[in-house]
């Protein structure tokens, strides 16, 4: 260790003495990028598969290509990741982001995993003026916080735009006489579920859509069949569950068993997971999904192959979206041509970015026109709403009966 430092010091001395003054500034050895995500504790599984894995994959892709081009130095500079485990604790995440900035003096810090952690660490990023693109965060508050946190960008679809197309869809199908328009809503009693359900309720009210069932269930519920029976008695023709992965799987299986098969069937987080496809096979066809990516976006196919090669498993859309935020960051850096965080922030704020997931542009730091609703069509997750976007596929209606 010590010897290497001495050698390096010696080398730079010789370099300084023997070479003529260089026109360009010396390019940094690497771009140091830090992050803290949960690698242990209850958030670890989600954080590991959606966030951590993508950061690693992106760094590998960048370095395989020689690094990020920094115009100022006319050189490609590799990235170096500095990672910490926040142990699923929010206070720890805050502490670690600060530590990365103050002690490790990294060039950039990436977003943590989860809505609560992102919201809690955002003030730190903004205090030290580190640009950050939050992906795994969705909350009503985000829309209002934009001006207060100029360095935070929010890439995921937020509750209101995520649910508005659903109400519009029900309204349209009702007017066309295809369904009676009786909506059943259930949601997990957790921040995302509550906000999504409330947004949906409001959207339905605006569209004049009738809600016949609206109830929550607790996180970690182990049986939802009584609720399904209750809904079945009300005979809804559109079902929306704002759910988390384990309940998404459960409510789907129990709907199969009990024969609850309305023509519109929507479930939340977990629906596009490879494990969902593996478990439900052909029965997934026609199920609507919270969020989506444009499966025809350039580079996505190659990305999926690289992902498979690195992790030996299929990818879910949250990972694709996370990877896309890294592409945005990379493009912004390349545009600026140096590590100047203020300029990078401005580049993100003003630019339009073509990625493997979507075309991103931020207004008020919010990705306004994000993909809101996807659908299983055959063996593929396709993007359905907003329907005017490039890559949108028409809705498959009705969902085939189970």
């Amino acid at each position: 260790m010590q010897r290497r430092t001495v050698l390096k010091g010696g080398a730079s001395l010789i370099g300084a003495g023997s070479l003529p003054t260089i026109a360009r500034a010396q390019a940094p050895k690497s771009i140091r990028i830090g992050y803290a995500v949960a690698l242990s504790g209850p958030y670890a599984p989600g954080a590991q598969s959606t966030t951590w894995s993508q950061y690693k994959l992106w760094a590998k892709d960048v370095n395989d290509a020689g690094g990020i081009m920094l115009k100022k130095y006319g050189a490609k500079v590799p990235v170096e990741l500095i990672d910490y485990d926040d142990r699923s604790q929010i206070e720890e995440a805050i502490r670690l982001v600060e530590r990365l900035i103050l002690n490790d003096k990294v060039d950039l810090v990436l977003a943590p995993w989860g809505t609560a952690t992102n919201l809690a660490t955002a003030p730190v990023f903004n205090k030290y003026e580190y640009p950050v693109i939050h992906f795994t965060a969705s909350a009503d508050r985000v829309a209002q916080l934009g001006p207060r946190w100029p360095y935070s960008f929010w890439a995921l679809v937020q509750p209101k735009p995520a649910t508005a197309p659903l109400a519009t869809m029900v309204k349209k199908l009702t007017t066309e006489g295809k369904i009676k328009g009786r909506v059943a809503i259930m949601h997990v009693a957790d921040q995302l579920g509550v906000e999504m359900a409330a947004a949906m309720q409001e959207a339905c009210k605006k569209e004049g859509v009738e809600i016949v069932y609206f109830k929550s269930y607790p996180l970690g519920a182990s049986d939802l069949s009584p609720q399904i029976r209750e809904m079945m008695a009300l005979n809804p023709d559109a079902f929306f569950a704002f759910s988390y992965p384990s309940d998404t799987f459960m409510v789907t299986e129990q709907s199969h068993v009990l024969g609850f098969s309305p023509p519109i069937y929507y479930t939340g987080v977990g629906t596009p997971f490879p494990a969902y496809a593996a478990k439900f096979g052909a029965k997934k066809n026609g199920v609507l999904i919270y969020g989506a990516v444009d499966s025809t976006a350039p580079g996505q196919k190659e990305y999926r192959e690289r992902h498979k090669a690195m992790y030996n498993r299929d990818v879910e859309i949250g990972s694709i979206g996370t990877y896309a935020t890294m592409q945005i960051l990379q493009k912004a850096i390349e545009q600026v041509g140096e590590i100047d965080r203020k300029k990078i922030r401005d580049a993100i704020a003003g630019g339009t970015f073509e990625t493997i997931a979507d075309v991103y542009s931020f207004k008020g730091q919010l990705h306004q026109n994000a993909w809101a609703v996807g659908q299983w069509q055959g063996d593929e997750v396709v993007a359905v709403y907003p329907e005017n976007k490039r890559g949108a596929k028409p809705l498959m209606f009705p969902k085939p009966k189970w």
Partner: protein
Amino acid sequence: MILFEVVLSGVLVGGMYGLIALGLNLQYGIARMMNLAYGEALMGGAYTAFWFFMLWRIDPLASMLFSVPVAFCGNWLIYRYLLSPLIRRAANQEILEADTILVTFGLLFVFQGLALVQWGGEYRGYTYLAVPIDLLGATVALNRLMAFVAAVVLALALYWLLRSTRLGGALRAIAIDPVAAQLVAVDVPRLSALAFAAGGAIMAAAGTLVSMFLSFNASIGIVYTLKALIVVIMGGVGRMLGCLMAGLLLGLAEALGAYLVDPGLTLAINFALFLLVLLVRPQGLFSRG
């Protein structure tokens, strides 16, 4: 009719709660080790069932032939080489409890970390016997019914073993008073290790059963550890029948509360019941004396 189905739902879930509480009771009530990594055996059983089913189409119930002995041996080794040395080292009961909680908390992270590295963080699930069965006019999923039956059979077998065999008598004596037990020549260290190992084995079996109808990921263990702990405290530490009853009661309260009050309140009802028991019968609902 719906009410009957709600009750049925509660009973089916409650049977599983009872089973996992029995296992914890073996570890905490008899071996006297508060094992925070208890639920990791459930995770192991679930992953085993999943992989056996996905890779080789082996029936989940058959996968227990592998996961249960492995969990038994693993837990035995943990007790023998990680936990029982703490007994010798600790100056008193409080220190021992603090030590075991620290060590098993570490174990929890080790097992969860291994599962994460090995299998990633995503949710896993497979479809097994997800067919409707008519039970006295109510519809239930066959996999849940099977899991319930298996849980109850296991629980009753264990109960019989503890009640009616020589070994069971010794285990109960240890649960009540290990000092008195060793003075009638009960080999307390060996039988404690056995009880601890059996607790882990039961949890692996429970993991297999749970995986038949619920999806899971690497962090599922702690959820069930806490559930089991609540049921054990409700039913009475060391009380086997009490735990079965408390498990059923908890399942019923959750289901009825969700239906009659609001599904979102299930957790609140859960904890209200727990607190009520703590206040009214701190020694456990079904404990004598």
